């Protein structure tokens, strides 16, 4: 379980958000939505201590994230997989090695076992036979799918998705959405998805957190969102041209 308590963050004099508090229960899929620049990715990076807040706490399975030593933090981070916005693939190695990377450093698997696991992960993201490709030869959608395969290769408890469908065509977006649903249902992964794509939200999310005007403007289940009268939330959804 992830508990976010009174989190505030500024960059210099620019307030990103303040007093953000909500919980993410094990196994659920939460979508964090909001306009560009509302601090969604900044919030996501706090869940893995890639950024530190000005005040507040993030508690992962009872551990106060920002009070951990670096060694303890590294252990907690291994509970997470992150799909970064651009994939964040290592461009000095090929697709196969990118996915195999965590296995080589954090497991004692032999080469044959690594190959089997990587091929299974690549099959899961519909990239069979792409292992030999350099990452520079991959399209945007393929990069995200490789990033996803790498994020789940160590079977993490939590997967953080940063704009998983942004910049993708509708068909590829649908494939990514299907993968997120598959991860959640079959691998019992807790998913936190940053997006401004309401179509994705309606497909994958169980709960929604809406960041607006430097705060957590709205939080609730998908059903509650459908019946919400919150004007800023409704404006955001209306601008997305989706009927709920």
């Amino acid at each position, binding site marked *: 379980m992830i508990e976010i308590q009174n989190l505030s963050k500024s960059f210099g004099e620019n307030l990103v958000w303040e007093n953000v508090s909500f919980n993410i229960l094990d196994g659920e899929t939460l979508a964090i939505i909001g306009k560009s620049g509302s601090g969604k990715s900044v919030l996501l*990076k706090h869940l893995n201590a890639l950024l530190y807040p000005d005040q507040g706490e993030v508690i992962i399975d009872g551990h106060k994230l920002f009070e951990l030593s670096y060694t303890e933090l590294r252990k907690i*981070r291994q509970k997470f997989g992150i799909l970064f916005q651009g994939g964040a693939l*290592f461009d000095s190695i090929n697709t196969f090695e990118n996915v195999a990377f965590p296995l080589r450093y954090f497991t004692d698997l032999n080469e044959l076992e690594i190959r089997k696991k990587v091929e299974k992960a690549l099959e899961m993201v519909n990239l069979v036979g792409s292992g030999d490709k350099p990452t520079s030869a991959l399209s945007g959608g393929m990069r995200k799918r490789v990033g996803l395969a790498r994020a789940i290769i160590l079977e993490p408890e939590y997967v953080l998705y940063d704009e998983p469908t942004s910049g993708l065509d509708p068909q590829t977006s649908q494939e990514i959405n299907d993968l997120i649903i598959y991860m959640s249902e079959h691998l019992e992964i807790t998913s936190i998805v940053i997006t401004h794509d309401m179509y994705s939200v309606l497909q994958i999310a169980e709960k929604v957190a809406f960041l607006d005007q430097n705060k957590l403007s709205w939080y609730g289940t998908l059903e509650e969102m459908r019946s919400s009268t919150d004007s800023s939330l409704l404006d955001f959804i209306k601008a997305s041209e989706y009927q709920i």
Partner: protein
Amino acid sequence: MEAIRQLGQYATLLYHALRSILEFSTYRKNLFQEFVKIGYESVPIIMLTGAFTGAVLTLQTAYQLGADTLLPISVVGSIVGQSIIIELAAVIGALVLAGKVGARISTELGTMRVSEQIDALESMGFNSVTFLVVPRVLSGILMFPVLYVVAAVMGISGGLLAGSLDGILLAAEFMQGAREFFFPEDVVFGVVKSFVFGFVITSISSFKGYYASGGAEGVGKATTQATVLSCIYILLSDFALAALLL
């Protein structure tokens, strides 16, 4: 104020690098790759730089001494040999490598930073400093003295060749002069210098790249700063070492 903040950040990065130096298994593979990139791949440019420095120095020394000098002509070999060993092989080589090695390191790490590859490493539970910075700095410290020896040998060879081809002095005369003023402690001084220059270039470039921000423009800025700062600190540390050790 900004300079003090950056100095603190640089010291913190080095502290983290030093603390994780025993985690050899994490950076072993990268270390050997850096040996090749910093050491092996720099040999051609260092050979070229060394040879031409020695050749030009020989011609200029002969010109400055003039035809009517009372000194024996073998003194050209003494001046060139000692200048190359004490100063030029280390400093000229380091200035060239500040461009080649320093720019590569800061661009590589800067690009990894702005494309979130460093965040990806950290998020997996890696210590990115151990993985990326330690092998680069360690490789610089270990490879620069080797490159210094290559530059010195090529510098003396270039001087010898230029002197004999230009008819200034015979190869035997050049070597006689060079041997007369060859002191092993000068080589030790050159090695110490190159060791320090290797550290200066790789640590500054790693620091600038590791903390780069602001997309392609930010990486370009980091690379420029890394190269300029490396050159400035090479010259400053050269002066400091000369004042301390000579």
